[in-house]
């Protein structure tokens, strides 16, 4: 029996699922080294966070009466990103609350996937930073002995991270070259600089993310760090320390490139990245907390549609030339 169908009769291999899957796999690779060093605690933290995200997503699908589909893996990405932006020694309820906020306040009320104006992971992290700043910024010392049971508090000694030392105006103990290997105090996923860089290049090559925003973000942050160093040293050292400490590099590769919250046109994306990078340095200079990338990113998300409109206005409201 023949039936009617609507064109197109083809579809491409590149779907939202494949894009999200690339990002998810890239971020999962950041968990490997911490698991090797410290046991399975990082996996538990990430798992709790991802589970909360899925639970919130399922709840909202039921409320809205939509089908729950197994290919919706974007909540997993949100959950994992939040877990990677928090320290490993954090109590388990913290990433869960952050993820619940991210899904229930920053993502679902705006219409769910694809309609959120603000990056949910950044919003969740900002919420817990404002509510429990001491918990979010307490890091364990990787050079001393520590033990992390799967659930419950571990035994470790605390140390201040390079970004906190920079905030106080002193030079961190660790050399920038040593920071590349990731063996210093910081959030779970943001210290593995080399791995993040490799993931970034992989994402750009498979076209799951676009490089303009990242490059402009890093460029603007580097420029601000070189022109206004927070510590007494050469501009190059300041650039190295600023770019390698805190969540700046992680945000530049994974959060700024999120296609839903960034502008749609190329010049607007460059401006967005540069704005976010500059605001990150402003937050680091003038803000209360030692890290400012997520705050700056939320500001840039608010300004993203304006940047698109500005580009269209500059183009003359007719878009690209047409024919005939």
């Amino acid at each position, binding site marked *: 029996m023949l039936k009617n169908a*609507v064109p197109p*009769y*083809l579809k491409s291999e590149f779907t939202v699922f494949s894009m999200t899957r690339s990002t998810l796999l890239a971020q999962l690779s950041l968990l490997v080294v911490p698991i090797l060093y410290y046991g399975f605690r990082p996996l538990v933290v990430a798992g709790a966070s991802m589970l909360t995200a899925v639970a919130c997503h399922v709840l909202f699908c039921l409320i809205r009466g939509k089908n729950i589909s197994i290919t919706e893996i974007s909540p997993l990405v949100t959950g994992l990103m939040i877990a990677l932006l928090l320290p490993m020694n954090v109590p388990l309820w913290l990433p869960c609350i952050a993820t619940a906020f991210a899904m229930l306040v920053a993502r679902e009320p705006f219409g769910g996937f694809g309609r959120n104006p603000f990056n949910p992971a950044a919003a969740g992290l900002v919420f817990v930073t404002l509510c429990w700043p001491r918990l979010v910024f307490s890091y364990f010392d990787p050079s001393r002995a520590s033990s992390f049971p799967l659930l419950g508090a571990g035994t470790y000694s605390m140390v201040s991270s390079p970004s906190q030392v920079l905030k106080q105006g002193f030079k961190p103990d660790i050399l920038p070259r040593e920071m590349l290997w990731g063996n210093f105090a910081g959030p779970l996923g943001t210290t593995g600089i080399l791995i993040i860089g490799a993931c970034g290049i992989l994402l750009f090559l498979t076209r799951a993310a676009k490089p303009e925003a990242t490059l402009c973000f890093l460029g603007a942050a580097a420029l601000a760090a070189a022109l206004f160093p927070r510590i007494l040293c050469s501009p190059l050292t300041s650039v190295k320390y600023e770019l390698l400490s805190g969540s700046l590099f992680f945000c530049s590769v994974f959060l700024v490139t999120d*296609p839903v919250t960034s502008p749609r046109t190329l010049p607007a994306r460059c401006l967005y990245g540069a704005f976010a990078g500059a605001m990150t340095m402003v937050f680091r200079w003038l803000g209360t907390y030692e890290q400012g990338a997520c705050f700056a990113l939320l500001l840039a998300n608010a300004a993203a549609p304006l940047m698109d409109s500005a580009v269209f206005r500059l183009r003359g409201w007719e878009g690209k030339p047409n*024919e005939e």
Partner: protein
Amino acid sequence: MPRGVKLDLEKEPSLKEQVITIPAPKTLPAPKMFASLRKKAAAAKVLERARIAEIVDELDGEPLYKKLKRFVSADALTLVAVCFDEDPMTSATQAVFRENAAKVLAGLDAAAHACRAVSKKIAAASREEFRYVPKNRAGVELLTAGDRYPAAVLLRRKWMEKGKSAGFIGGQACAALADAVTRGLAQNETVVTVAGNGASRWVNCRVRIGTPVRDVLAAGKLLPETSVVAVGSSVNGRSITNLSEPVTAATRCIIAMKGLPRRKTLPCVGCGRCERACPRGIIPWMILQQLELEEPNPFRLFNVEHCIQCESCSIVCPSGIHLVDAVRRAEKIKEGRENKGC
């Protein structure tokens, strides 16, 4: 930035065999015949012959004589015969070119003479097609189609950007014109490709215009799981359920499909692929944004009236949104606004 979308071409299965002829059903009238024209007939006579032979250009379904008449008024025109098919599964015009390139070239000469074109070119699928050009016409200039869909539209755009005026006519129409001029035949046949994963044999068929689709499909040895039949293109063709529909001169292919890939539609993620893929300069993601507002701004619906419904945007969209529907709705809104006089 390359426009259009790269699709896997599947023309080889239908090009392997020669073009088969489907016998005409008894109900169709006999083809009309006229006296053949002299070799050096006047341009106006060729135009007149194209009109009474009722030749329809398979590129866009427009009668050939109307098209050539339009080209007469253009100056420094280059006439291009399109001897490839945009659709990835179709090879009808390409098979016609391979079968008898001399006839296509003769038709191109006649058409160029009729519209006073200053130069003639053949646009073929690839450099390989050059082999099929007869040795005594080695001087004809060849253009290649490129591997992005929709190839003819992109070729036309390339010429437009170069600033030269070019007229595009179909290869099968050229062959029909050659027949009308030298042998006095009205256009009564066309070559149609039967393809699709519901057809176990992909073949080019020469059929009488007016043959029901059913007869042509029979040559493709349909599999029983066939559930969709599309006419015109395997990408954006029209799906039909009544197989007695007659074949027209502009039918390029009949595609039988077992089933369609299931598309789950998600909201737009803002990747911008649709904007890059559109060959006509439309920005589908912006159209979607505007359509969600209560009062869409017609100034932001760029170029929607130029949409040719090639479905490039819908193919590349990772969210699986039917962008052509959105562009058509936007077109109605824009027309409505213009009619209201705003």
